[in-house]
């Protein structure tokens, strides 16, 4: 394996952090004792769906939409082409957990126990330092949202989707389940039936937001399902960066996370979506994420997939207008006992479109990392270009990696390339670094970070630090690496 060493000062600082950090699992896998105010109990049926809609006092179209989606969900089989999903306990999952009536726009109004949880995760601190606005969701409902006034004045809308449905019903209706229809797959149908929370972000024409906006999702209850639905609309000529962070405490029973993320990037707009998920190892993470990218617009997906028991995630870009572009950068960490079935899809539907996909995975112990991707160039996508690169790093002898790209080209003027490598930390690289005085651990970490460098440098600093700590932590547990 070839490794390029980053000379980046920031990376050096990260390495320093890494050396000094002494993180424990408890830092995020704690759980508080907050009891939900309302819960639909376990199991899913028509009544539960109607109840959710009732509590939320939703418009009738949404109630009917949910019920239709439930039928679709019930008619679709559990997919069998990927990882084993038999551990999902559909009957004993709690599909809706409501923390409290409160949805504050000031942290002081958030119930103490919940606030304490977000404090521990550092959410309010980050908001102050780096963000243009933020939303916090606890189990099924948003508990906090804020947006800096300067953006509110320019017509930006940023709140949880439930609030948006009340305050901007027509806007929501225009975009809800358009890019990801309920018929897309079983988990999308489930989300459409029982969705709760998620963010709604609308950036008006020409508005360029220079600070990121962030949502933090926290799943607290045992055997809970979290089904947030997020919609980001970047109107013509606008620019936005939206970030999501996700954590959950560790329980014995499995939890299910099945989100929908829909992103609409209009003509000449630029959108970046960054997500770092660190669900605990009892979570099945099954989101459907998709972007519609119009003429000369750019969509960037940046992802760090660290936690969960099983993740199946293939963020897609539909390049619908000429000169639309997309970049997809993803890091997956398949820790012991976990499966990461991740990848990307790019569909070139117009001329002169381009896509670039970089996926990196690390498998530790019996962790299994799978790259699964689709690249499609439709007839008429003239002079479009695409390059897909996926690299896997195996840490231990029993680590495994699978690569299943799928490339369909119907257009003779298109150019497409794909490369994949699988390797492990080379003894020579390790020896070289150690001969310069690094310990074996430091040397391995440095090589791992070098391997991840192309993607890491695109991830916001505070998340990158968190990811580095986690990777280090997973590797430390194994003792000597290499």
């Amino acid at each position: 394996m070839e490794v390029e060493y980053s000379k980046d000062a920031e990376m050096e600082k990260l390495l320093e952090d890494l050396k000094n950090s002494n993180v424990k699992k408890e830092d995020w896998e704690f759980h508080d004792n907050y009891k939900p105010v309302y819960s639909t109990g376990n199991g899913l049926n028509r009544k539960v769906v109607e109840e959710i809609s009732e509590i939320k006092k939703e418009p009738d179209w949404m109630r009917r939409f949910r019920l239709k989606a439930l039928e679709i969900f019930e008619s679709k089989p559990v997919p069998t082409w990927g990882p084993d999903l038999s551990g999902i306990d559909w009957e004993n999952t709690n599909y809706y957990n409501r923390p409290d009536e409160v949805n504050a726009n000031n942290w002081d109004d958030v119930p103490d126990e919940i606030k304490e949880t977000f404090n521990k995760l550092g959410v309010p601190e980050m908001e102050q330092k780096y963000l243009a606005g933020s939303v916090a969701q606890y189990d099924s409902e948003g508990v906090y949202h804020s947006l800096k006034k300067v953006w509110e004045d320019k017509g930006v809308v940023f709140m949880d989707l439930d609030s948006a449905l009340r305050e901007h019903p027509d806007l929501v209706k225009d975009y809800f389940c358009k890019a990801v229809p309920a018929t897309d797959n079983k988990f999308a149908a489930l989300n459409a039936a029982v969705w709760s929370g998620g963010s709604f972000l609308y950036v008006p024409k020409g508005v360029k937001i220079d600070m990121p906006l962030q949502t933090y999702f926290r799943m607290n209850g045992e055997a809970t399902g979290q089904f947030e639905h997020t919609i980001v609309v970047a109107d013509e000529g606008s620019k936005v960066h939206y970030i999501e962070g996700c954590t959950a405490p560790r329980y014995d029973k499995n939890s299910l996370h099945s989100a929908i993320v829909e992103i609409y990037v209009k003509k000449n707009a630029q959108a970046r979506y960054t997500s770092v998920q660190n669900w605990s190892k009892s979570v099945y993470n099954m989101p459907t994420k998709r972007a519609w990218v119009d003429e000369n617009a750019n969509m960037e997906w940046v992802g760090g997939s660290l936690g969960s028991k099983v993740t199946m995630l293939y963020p897609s870009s539909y390049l619908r207008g000429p000169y639309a572009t997309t970049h997809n950068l993803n890091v997956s960490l398949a820790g012991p006992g976990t499966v990461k079935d991740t990848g990307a899809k790019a569909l070139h539907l117009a001329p002169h479109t381009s896509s670039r996909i970089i996926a990196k995975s690390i498998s530790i112990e019996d962790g299994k990392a799978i790259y699964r991707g689709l690249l499609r160039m439709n007839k008429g996508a003239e002079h479009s270009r695409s390059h897909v690169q996926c690299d896997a790093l195996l840490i231990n002898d029993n680590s495994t990696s699978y690569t299943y790209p799928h490339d369909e080209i119907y257009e003779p003027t298109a150019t497409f390339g794909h490369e994949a490598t699988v390797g492990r930390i080379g003894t020579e690289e390790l020896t070289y670094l150690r001969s310069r005085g690094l310990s074996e651990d430091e040397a391995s970490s440095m090589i791992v970070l070098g391997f991840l460098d192309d993607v890491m440098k695109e991830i916001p600093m505070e998340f990158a630090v968190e990811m580095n700590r986690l990777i280090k932590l997973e590797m430390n547990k194994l003792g000597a690496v290499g």
Partner: protein
Amino acid sequence: MESYPETLKTRLNDEAYEYRRDAFLAFLKSPVRNYKESPTVKDYVEITDDELQEMLYGEMKESKESPVFSETANLKVFNEEITVSDELLKEGVVVTTMEDALKTQPELVKKYVFPRLGKERIEFLINSAWRNGLFIYVPDSSKVSIRAHTINNSSASFASKTVIIYGKESKVRYTDTYSTIGQGTGIHGKNIYFFGGESSKFDYLYLQDKSEGVRDITFVKQYLEKFAEFQFFHINHGSSKTLFVDESQQTGNGSSFRVYGVNFSTGNQKMDIRDSSFQEGEESNADIQVRGVVTGSSSTIHRGNIDLEEKAIKATGFYDSKILLLSKDGFANSKPGLEIKNANTRSKHGSSISNVDEEQIFYLRSRGIDDQVARGMVTAGFVGSIIEKANDEEFTRKVYQYAESLGANAFLATN
């Protein structure tokens, strides 16, 4: 398909009956693949059960035309008759039909043929229903050069099974050409299995150039013992529908598997070309390079999987596919895969699909070469450079001929 067991009993009731029966059971048990829900898997060359029935119950029809064999052939097969040059049958080399081998070589058949039912659904069926095919045995340390030419009636439908066993330290060069007579639309299934002894060397040159109505299904397997080296050159040019599946079974430590494949799809042809390695041997290596050229309304899919098992310490596996998509109505698809179950290995795959590189065309034109000629040269070079490694004049000539005969029409649709 239900009445097939009856057919087995009456028509194919030979020494291989139990093997045929077990293979048929395996066929029945294996599910028909349905990946409709998967975002990434789709079968483009679909062989329906109706077609498989044609293959099962088809007849070996008599041909009115007489076959024209390659002048250099020393092993000629016409429908079910074989003619072997005496020069081949020396020092214990056996070349006969499978049917004959069941009677004359029971030990070898029992050791190599019967234990292996296959791995895939259609492969099982061919192992149950084969009607003809060759049995070749090359003793230890022998050196043989076989130039086989098989000609079949294009309207016949049948399954055949060929087994080639070559002993340790043997060296074999085998040129294997398949063509047809007539313009029929038969369906031909064949399994070709190689069993390579320790430190053996095998060069296999395969050419399929059947008439355009034929449907061709081929499974090739190489069972390689330690330090066995197998070099495989394959060319697929004919047939309306081609399913070509090649997979090494490298149980031997230090075994080596190299594949250089070339295929041309023109008109309405559909080709599904799969080259994979399955490696268990320590320090085994596989290097697969496949090139495709797509013109007209044809489609080509390249698949290849490098599978490095837990035991395959220090193994390497490489797969590289490149397809030139030259026409507006053509379709190209590549589906490489890596399944790596051992960290002490190196593996890599790459694939690309594109038209010819315009910078290259411009460079040739700037020296006075016609646009069309330049495109022909670049295309021929693209496939020729792969097949030239076989060092076989006839094969090299064929490939250049195929590339050049794509003619001006192949390039009309570009720009």
